[in-house]
């Protein structure tokens, strides 16, 4: 009954007029919205296109070259918007015939923490995250439970103590990779265990699986002052990370895959850190492994770290 009543009251021409008016208004509104999005950058500085592209972004290893390049440009735009800094984000593939290894001479390490500072600056770390911890231990002891990473002294080295930096061991049999339910972390062909920060769901299973406590979680949006940002960044390396993802040492992929030394090696004033290609028989790291009494942390777990320690004695 109601419909017949409406039919009686509203003439078909009027309906058409209504519809036309509505469509015109809708069209105008959409046009205005699209213009404003593209011109002024709505969505708090992000374009709608970037927002959608972020949401539908593929896993790093499933992206085509074009998609990857598009993603890198988007990361650069995001950094400009969030931090006000024009960064360069690239993807450097692993080098052929290279597997990276690291060795630390514990006799040479004096506990200055210069490596920790260099890492902080190089890798755009949040203020509460440090990839490297320098452990202070009693001479003659190797009980890591008694190690102090918060030591504060007027001068180091302290008599009767020795210092042992720990960071991600880049295991050859990494338990963190096995624990990840979404394959957001994996081992690259050059031996570096990397994370796709955009694929990480923040479940922190990898943190629980890591026996070296080498992984860290961004509980809040990392605060990076513009003047502190390192603009030379890498997709799997030191690009600014979002909130709610796990991160860790990646042997400075942005440097080492270009033939440079990691920032911690460069900063070490005592030459305690030796970095190189394990597959090159003439490299320094191979000399250390073949001629020094080296050891690794928690070897019995079978994680096969590519991070060795040795001493002069």
């Amino acid at each position: 009954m109601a419909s017949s009543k409406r039919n009686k009251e509203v003439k078909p021409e009027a309906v058409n007029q209504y519809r036309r008016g509505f469509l015109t208004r809708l069209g105008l509104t959409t046009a205005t919205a699209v213009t404003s999005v593209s011109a002024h950058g709505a969505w708090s500085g992000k374009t709608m296109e970037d927002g959608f592209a972020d949401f539908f972004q593929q896993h790093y290893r499933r992206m085509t070259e074009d998609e990857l390049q598009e993603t890198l440009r988007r990361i650069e735009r995001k950094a400009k918007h969030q931090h006000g800094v024009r960064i360069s984000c690239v993807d450097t593939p692993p080098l052929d015939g290279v597997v990276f290894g690291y060795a630390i001479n514990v006799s040479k390490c004096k506990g200055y923490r210069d490596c920790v500072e260099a890492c902080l600056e190089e890798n755009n770390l949040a203020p509460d995250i440090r990839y490297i911890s320098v452990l202070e231990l009693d001479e003659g002891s190797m009980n890591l439970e008694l190690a102090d990473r918060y030591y504060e002294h007027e001068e180091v080295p302290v008599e009767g103590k020795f210092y042992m930096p720990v960071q991600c061991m880049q295991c050859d049999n990494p338990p963190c990779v096995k624990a990840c339910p979404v394959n957001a972390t994996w081992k690259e062909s050059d031996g570096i265990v990397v994370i796709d920060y955009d694929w990480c769901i923040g479940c922190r299973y990898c943190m629980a699986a890591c026996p070296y406590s080498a992984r860290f979680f961004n509980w809040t949006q990392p605060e990076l002052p513009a003047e502190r940002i390192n603009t030379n960044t890498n997709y799997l390396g030191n690009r600014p990370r979002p909130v709610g993802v796990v991160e860790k040492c990646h042997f400075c992929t942005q440097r080492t895959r270009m033939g440079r030394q990691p920032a911690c090696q460069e900063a070490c004033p005592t030459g305690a850190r030796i970095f190189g290609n394990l597959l090159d028989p003439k490299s320094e790291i191979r000399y250390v492994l073949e001629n020094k009494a080296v050891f690794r942390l928690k070897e019995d777990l079978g994680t096969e770290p590519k991070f060795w320690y040795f001493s002069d004695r």
Partner: protein
Amino acid sequence: MLRWLLMIVTVATPCVLGAEEADQFQAETRLYPEAPEFTVAPRNYKKKFRHDCTRCHEAEDADPEPRQLKTRHIREIDHGGNRFWCLTCHDGENMDFLRTSRNEKIKFDQSYLICGSCHANRQKDWYFGAHGKRVSGWQGDRVILACTQCHNPHSPATEARKPKPFPPVRIGLERQQPHIPAITQSWKP
């Protein structure tokens, strides 16, 4: 004529000296031929290590007798347990050069040849890369620091200094203390 003569002398002298130097400074490659190739990084001595010895010693010969040194010298040599004197390492004839125990005249940049006469193990490690520091990238030309670029030759022990700040603790958490194991009573039957 005189101008030409002067010019020839000016140009020729460094060439002759250069040839002489090349003869003198061929010591290093003999030690470990199987060690990877290297070049020593350019000298960037800190001010305290910088000495221009010939400024005075050109006019005055170095005194080979050990004694308490006066102006413009290092007061103490904290190296070698008081058994060293300047001429143990420096060349007495030209104080801007060094002299090895094999009586070879070498440049300051080749200090590793002298250090190795006592610290042979370290020297071998240095040649192969287990001691010292590589300042170039991990691949490509191997540029390394010479001994005296890290160690003060007159007091070679690494200096103690204040460390960089300790890592922050996340808000709401307390600084993790090392686990001190509880002293348990010894087992009694």
